[in-house]
């Protein structure tokens, strides 16, 4: 195991983040504030409570998920796409570094960044509403698993992409809609019955529901299901990465 290589990739990626730490953190802070102004003040005035939780607090887990998922994907996909794009990937390929080590470095860094962003959003949200976390350790488990899984997913997108448009395609057309429709800002029980069934085909519902359960003890689906969903998603991404490296898909000619 080339631990120094993992560390080199990880710190190199983290440096990119810290070089632009202000921009990196400013945008999630601003968007969280905006969401609170729009959803909390405007809608919250009408929907005071959802399942016994104030609406302002209710949307916090969804907000964190939205940022964490999109940030994990974009950081990891960009992280591996960029060396491919500018040609510096030759160095990774010619170094005594295994694919596992490369993935660990990039995915670890992307997951760390999104974790930091998630924490910053939580702290920002606390300025607006009071939040008590009912199952803190489960909250951390969900958050970390989701950061890692989505970073893996982003890594796959970065390998698959041949241009910048493709790089943004999946997050824009698939992930963001699924998160919005996945109950980030409402409870599934608030939907008409037919839509409640349709919604259950959206995998993100399970992730957000589980994460929210860790906060407030209320959930759209049972927390066990949520945990299983996270584990399955994680395993699928891991398997896809393994296949990619086995076959050299879009990395080696």
């Amino acid at each position: 195991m080339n631990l120094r290589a993992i560390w080199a990739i990880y710190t190199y990626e983290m440096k990119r983040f810290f070089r632009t730490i202000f921009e990196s953190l400013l945008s999630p802070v601003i968007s969280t504030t905006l969401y609170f102004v729009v959803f909390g003040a405007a809608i919250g005035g009408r929907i005071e409570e959802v399942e016994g939780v104030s609406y302002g607090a209710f949307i916090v887990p969804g907000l964190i998920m939205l940022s964490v998922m999109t940030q994990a994907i974009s950081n990891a996909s960009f992280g591996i796409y960029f060396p491919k794009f500018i040609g510096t990937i030759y160095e990774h390929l010619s170094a005594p570094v295994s694919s596992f080590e490369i993935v660990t470095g990039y995915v670890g860094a992307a997951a760390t960044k999104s974790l930091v962003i998630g924490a910053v959003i939580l702290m920002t949200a606390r300025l607006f509403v009071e939040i008590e976390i009912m199952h803190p350790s489960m909250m951390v488990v969900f958050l970390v698993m989701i950061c890692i899984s989505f970073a893996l997913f982003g890594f796959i997108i970065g390998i698959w992409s041949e241009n910048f448009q493709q790089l943004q395609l999946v997050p824009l057309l698939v992930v963001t809609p699924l998160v919005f429709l996945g109950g980030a800002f409402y409870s599934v029980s608030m939907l008409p019955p037919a839509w409640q069934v349709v919604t259950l085909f959206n995998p993100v519902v399970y992730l957000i529901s589980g994460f929210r359960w860790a906060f407030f003890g209320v959930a759209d689906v049972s927390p066990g299901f949520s945990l299983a969903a996270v584990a399955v998603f994680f395993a699928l991404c891991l398997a896809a990465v393994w296949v990619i490296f086995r076959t050299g898909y879009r990395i080696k000619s």
Partner: protein
Amino acid sequence: MGAIVEVENLTKTYKDGLIALGGVSFTIEAGEILALLGPNGAGKTTLISALCGITAPSGGHARIGGHDVVRDWRAARRLVGLVPQEVALEPFERVINTVRFSRGLFGKGRDEALIERILRQLSLWDKRNASTRELSGGMKRRVLIAKALCHEPRVLFLDEPTAGVDVELRRDMWEVVRELKAQGVTIILTTHYIEEAEAIADRVAVINKGEILLVENKANLMRRMGRKTLRIDLVQPVDTVPEALAAYDLERIEEGAALLYHYDTRGDGTGITRLLQALAREGLCLRDIETRQSSLEEIFVGLVQEGAA
């Protein structure tokens, strides 16, 4: 010294069916400078890529330092530094950081003294804190060399290090290569400039259309190249070369209207003066004389054409 790189029947067929390497075999001795000489599209980059792990070989074997590049890739790659043909550098990173990164990627611990020495050797020390995108093309290539050297490789592959580089910088680059050789690094450089192969290589491998046409000691090649031919046109054709001229091994051509004398320019004396005196003693009148040199270029073109035929 033994072979440090051994290539056996290595083949590479790209996905589109193009056979870029058609069974290449040769060895590289530890400590030598080998020039891989061939026209564009010959397969030089493909060969280097297959040896360094950039591309998977389709068949055959290659070993570096005794380690198979596919089965025992980690041990093989530890020994290898690669300077690619295309300049590729992270644009917003400082020079010294990209070099440190390379060392980490190869699993080596920090060694700032070594990095300083390498950057100084490549005249990059003053630019160590510059962002890579501020550097000129030649400087960028030096950074790539620094990145390849910072993990102390025993074998260095330089893929067209002087393509698109001005004459002065090319001289500098050759100087660097010689210094590295003095430090015991084995160097394989590809080029399509014959003068380059001639200037710095110990041995030259000529490659065309995915085949190695010859691997030869440069001195031998130079000897071939050093051979000149003196053509002597006679006023009166001769039926036989006179006995007294036997020592000169003359070749009779055009039914005796002309004689050819082959000689070595690098010998202790070409023998031309004595030959001309001997010709005069034999009473032969000369109409004209002419000398010709066969260059490495000619040898090379000849080989490439043979390969194409």
